């Protein structure tokens, strides 16, 4: 029997593979080179003395503080929103699920300025009554379509979800009816009634950062829940848990790393958010200035080294955050035994 030829100790060194592998390496090195050049350009533009001077600037110190505060608040809110939504999309099949899934991705695809402009219009041109009417009407329509689709099959847990949707839509429509004579904008309501002014205010920064950050957090958490075997919940249910207990006692501890990864990713996205922040919260020095807008303001006043120093700081933060995400998301949650 003829013996098979010995396998090469390093298959990638065999001649027929070499051109292809060289091509792959060349593309990788070329792109990495571009990224390194981008960082190097910033490093070469700013001297250590200039970087220190920027860091001592009270406006920049305020910007750094505000950035940390707003990014952390946005990340926390994103995780709070993304955890139930990610779980719902991962575990339940219901009418309109694909449509909702698509809608949740819209903030990622929209031009950032559009989000800022939409927030500006929503808070300053639209009355709460109109808002409730549109939201309530849309939800009521979705509920009706859902019931028509589900009724013949009566597949659980769709009826529970649809009942909740129906109640929410009725509440919104009732609110629209009772506030129909009010001409105050959402901004007036938020500022005067609740003491939480948004437009061109620090709180507005969080709202401007939220849509995109939450969209990324939802993606991350949905993937995390997809990777956790539903059998954990099945066993927990047979042992006496209800759905909520199975989620909090069994699934959530398993999703811990995913939750941290989603939070970190949301934090990173919030750090880089510029367009919506500029349009909705403005870029007032010492008031609504975050690091992303600091770069813009420094360029506007012709201080290129200052802008480069802040850019470097953001690059370092982004690298640190990405390393954390890799660390958290590196080991997927157990899918079974």
């Amino acid at each position, binding site marked *: 029997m003829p013996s098979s030829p010995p396998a090469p100790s390093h298959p990638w060194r065999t001649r027929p593979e070499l051109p292809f592998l060289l091509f792959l390496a060349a593309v990788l090195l070329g792109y990495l080179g571009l990224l390194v050049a981008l960082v190097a350009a910033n490093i070469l533009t700013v001297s250590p003395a200039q970087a220190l001077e920027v860091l001592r600037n009270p406006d920049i110190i305020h910007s750094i503080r505000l950035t940390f505060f707003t990014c952390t608040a946005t990340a926390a809110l994103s995780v709070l929103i993304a955890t139930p939504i990610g779980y719902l999309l991962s575990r339940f099949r219901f009418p309109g699920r694909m449509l909702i899934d698509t809608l949740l991705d819209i903030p990622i695809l929209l031009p950032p300025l559009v989000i800022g402009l939409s927030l500006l219009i929503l808070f300053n041109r639209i009355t709460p009554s109109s808002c409730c009417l549109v939201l309530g009407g849309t939800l009521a329509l979705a509920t009706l379509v859902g019931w028509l689709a589900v009724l013949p099959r009566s597949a659980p847990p769709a009826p529970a979800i649809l009942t909740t949707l129906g109640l929410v839509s009725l509440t919104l429509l009732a609110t629209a009816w009772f506030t129909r004579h009010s001409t105050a904008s959402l901004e007036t309501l938020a500022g005067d009634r609740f003491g939480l002014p948004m437009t061109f205010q620090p709180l507005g920064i969080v709202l401007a950062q939220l849509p995109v950050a939450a969209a990324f957090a939802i993606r991350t958490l949905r993937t995390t829940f997809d990777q956790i075997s539903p059998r954990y919940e099945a066993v927990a249910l047979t*042992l006496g848990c209800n759905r909520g207990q199975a989620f909090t006692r069994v699934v959530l501890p398993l999703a811990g790393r995913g939750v941290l990864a989603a939070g970190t990713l949301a934090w990173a996205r919030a750090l880089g958010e510029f367009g919506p922040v500029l349009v909705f919260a403005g870029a007032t020095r010492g008031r609504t200035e975050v690091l992303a807008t600091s770069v813009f303001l420094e360029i506007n006043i012709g201080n290129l080294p200052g802008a480069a120093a802040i850019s470097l700081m953001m690059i370092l933060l982004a690298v640190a955050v990405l390393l954390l995400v890799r660390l958290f998301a590196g080991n997927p949650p157990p899918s079974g035994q």
Partner: protein
Amino acid sequence: MNPPILEIRHLDLQLGGFRLADFNLEVAGGECVALMGPSGCGKTTLLETICGLHRPAAGTIHLAGRDITHLPPGTRGIGLVPQDIALFPSLTVAEQLAFGPKLHRWPPGETRERVLSLAKALDLTSLLGRGLHGLSGGEARRVALGRALALRPRLLCLDEALSGLDETLHGEILAVIRDAIRREGVTALHVTHSSAEAAAIADRVVRMQARVPDAGERDLTANPPNGRWRHRSSGPPPGPEVGRC
């Protein structure tokens, strides 16, 4: 023969493209029944439906004379050992065993006593304080069995609980399961692909089979997971009769 403790009558279940139609089964008290059949024929789905994890479109499930068809899973008195064991990674072995009793608000003393007695019976006493890391496949299965038995269920559902074990461990765990079933006096449904395993553990084998396609209908047996299946289980068992365990 003992009177039936589990009675399934005309069970219809539809999950996506999968259909289980007019399924009937009776299991006597203390009996261990092996459910066998080709992959994708719905053995696991049937087990999960009995456990209350899927809602049947029609039919009834009675356990110990009580209609449990629409009861929540946790109130049915059924223990489940799923195929991938699914031990909760954040808990110690003792916490896994006490999970059910604590949820059902057993008095702490009774819970502790139950955990200790299960640990002794399943040879887990030295592992009680351990987390899941470092448990062998056999130890993990013993913990899963203990967790399922902790609430003293009327019915124990084992879904290919021995898959993936090597031959020595397979025999060892099989003996542990057999002893536990006998000691607890629990009725058991055991899903398996192995005739030898069924013969070793079960009093009776129920074979679930693919529906014979209607005239003009595509032969779905070539692509079972997407097909519609009908199951036959009532009447004389078509499979080999096996001795009592």
